[in-house]
């Protein structure tokens, strides 16, 4: 019964949206988000692609008999794709590209996600704090964010890499350090938007602890845009990582990593283009699906977009 009336309300609201003035009632917010997301064909496709990629990479050993690093056949380099032994051919050191692609996916995914997690964690906390407390805290934190943003990000990343030495961990660290301000900005904006709404006010009046207000009442309202930002930043992190390895500051040279592969193949663009196109496609596909999912989420979170 109650469910019924809920649906009633929210369909009703749907109608209102058709006319375009009222927003959805919060009651079935998450349900709606899920429903709308699943309705969005492109987003679902993106999700499927991503899942496939993840499965392939996680269970890499099941899909290839070659070791991405150890199976190096110097007599047998630059084998073209779709040969008998090597599905996607071999690279300039005779290593099986398919297996490097699979294992490389692990690396890149690791990089992308850890970067996002780190920078998101840092950014969100700072954003919440500065948005919620305002005044000098806000001023201080935002000034600092400005500083971080005003750095040409690659240059600071390079400096960090040069200082710490090349390794996947440091790539992640460097990218996270340059990545968090975006999250901070975003969160802060969201917080300011919901800070003075009735329910936060009432929560304050009810005498809840600040921490609790922030995390129970404010944070949930920032989650939508943040998730989108996260999907996007995961993709761009993978790209930036490959950019770093172009400048010779990537992770270990031997390690299978899409960015590294792309970079090592770039001198073969003319005679063995597949060395770059294959990881290139892999990266693009991943980022693409991430973005599609992100869009889907955005539309799902913000019904107006969907009209």
């Amino acid at each position: 019964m109650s469910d019924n009336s809920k649906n009633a309300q929210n369909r009703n609201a749907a109608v209102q949206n058709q006319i375009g003035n009222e927003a959805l009632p919060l009651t079935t917010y998450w349900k709606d988000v899920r429903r709308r997301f699943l309705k969005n064909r492109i987003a679902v496709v993106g999700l499927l692609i991503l899942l496939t990629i993840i499965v392939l990479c996680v269970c890499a050993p099941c899909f290839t008999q070659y070791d991405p690093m150890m199976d190096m056949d110097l007599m047998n380099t630059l084998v073209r794709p779709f040969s008998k032994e090597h599905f996607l051919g071999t690279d300039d050191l005779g290593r099986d590209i398919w297996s490097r692609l699979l294992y490389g996916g692990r690396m890149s995914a690791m990089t992308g996600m850890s970067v996002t997690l780190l920078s998101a964690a840092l950014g969100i906390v700072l954003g919440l704090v500065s948005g919620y407390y305002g005044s000098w805290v806000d001023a201080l934190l935002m000034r600092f964010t400005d500083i971080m943003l005003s750095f040409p990000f690659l240059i600071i990343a390079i400096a960090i890499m040069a200082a710490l030495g090349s390794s996947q961990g440091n790539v992640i660290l460097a990218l996270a350090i340059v990545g968090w301000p975006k999250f901070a900005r975003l969160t802060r904006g969201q917080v300011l938007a919901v800070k003075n709404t009735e329910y936060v006010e009432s929560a304050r009046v009810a005498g809840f602890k600040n921490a609790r207000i922030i995390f129970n009442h404010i944070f949930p309202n920032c989650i939508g845009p943040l998730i989108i930002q996260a999907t996007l930043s995961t993709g761009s992190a993978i790209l930036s990582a490959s950019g770093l390895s172009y400048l010779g500051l990537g992770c270990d040279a031997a390690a299978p990593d899409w960015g590294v592969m792309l970079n090592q193949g770039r001198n073969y663009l003319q005679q063995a283009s597949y060395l770059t196109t294959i990881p290139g496609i892999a990266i693009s596909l991943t980022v693409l699906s991430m973005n599609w999912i992100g869009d889907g989420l955005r539309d799902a979170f913000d019904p107006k977009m969907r009209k």
Partner: protein
Amino acid sequence: MWTYIVRRILQTIPTLLISSLLIFSLLYVTPGDPVELILGTEDANVSEEQRRLVEEQWGLDKPFLVRYIRFIKGVFVGDLGTSYATGEDVFSSVIKRMPNTLKLAGSSMVIALAVSLPLGILAALKHNGILDSVATALATIGVSLPRFWFGLVLIIFFALHLGWLPTMPETTSMADGIVPFMRSIILPASSLALSMAATQTRMVRSSMLDVLNQDYVRYARSKGLKERVVIWGHALKNAMIPVITVIGGEIGGLLGGAVITESIFSWPGVGRLTISSIARRDYPMIQGATLMLCISYMLVNLVVDVLYAWFNPRIRLDVK
């Protein structure tokens, strides 16, 4: 307005101080011996005597803070010191390259806008239509292509196969004729513009969609205005507001991304200078370059904010 601008410029000063300190200390902990690098690279073979001389000459014997403070003192009188590697005056050699970087960033901004605005708007108007999905797909692919890879592909295609454009800049100044300049900048600029164009297309699309649902658009229609007027007149200006803020954010990425683009297309900009200086541990040069980059970033952002206020009268700069 003017008071606001002045205040903003003043505000940048502490920001600059801290950022320069950041980069300075970062490099300070970075291994690498300037003296060796001053006196040559792989084959260097430096005598103690000469080392001492060089260290005195460049003040490398002084402790960290002293060096930093000396640097800052210099900054305020417009003296960024002289390069370890070349003995050039840092300020002048950065200033020589800065216009190039700005030209590059600027033209890629123009390209990005020229592509993203129409595309995004059309996508929004034909929402869920074929054009929409095409535009969105293009945009997403655009975001997901690695810059240096795209750059090289551009060169191979336009310079090598088609032979339309040079693989390296013929000139970097309009003075040598507009056509050569355009021929030189179009490839680097486009490769730099790619990702930005993509993100902006998405941005324009969604904010346009948002605006099209607003009451004032409906009201404008109810006045009987032509659809063209409603879209390009009433909707667009509103839709631009969030786009502009995004552009503001992009600029950092532009100047940063210029590093790669500049080294692929041998574009003589600050980014390239910074990279090579880092490799040489040419501290004064790195300092100067990053500092100038930060400054230009902030100035451009200031311009963006002023623009923002123009687009959005609800923001009043003076009371901000």
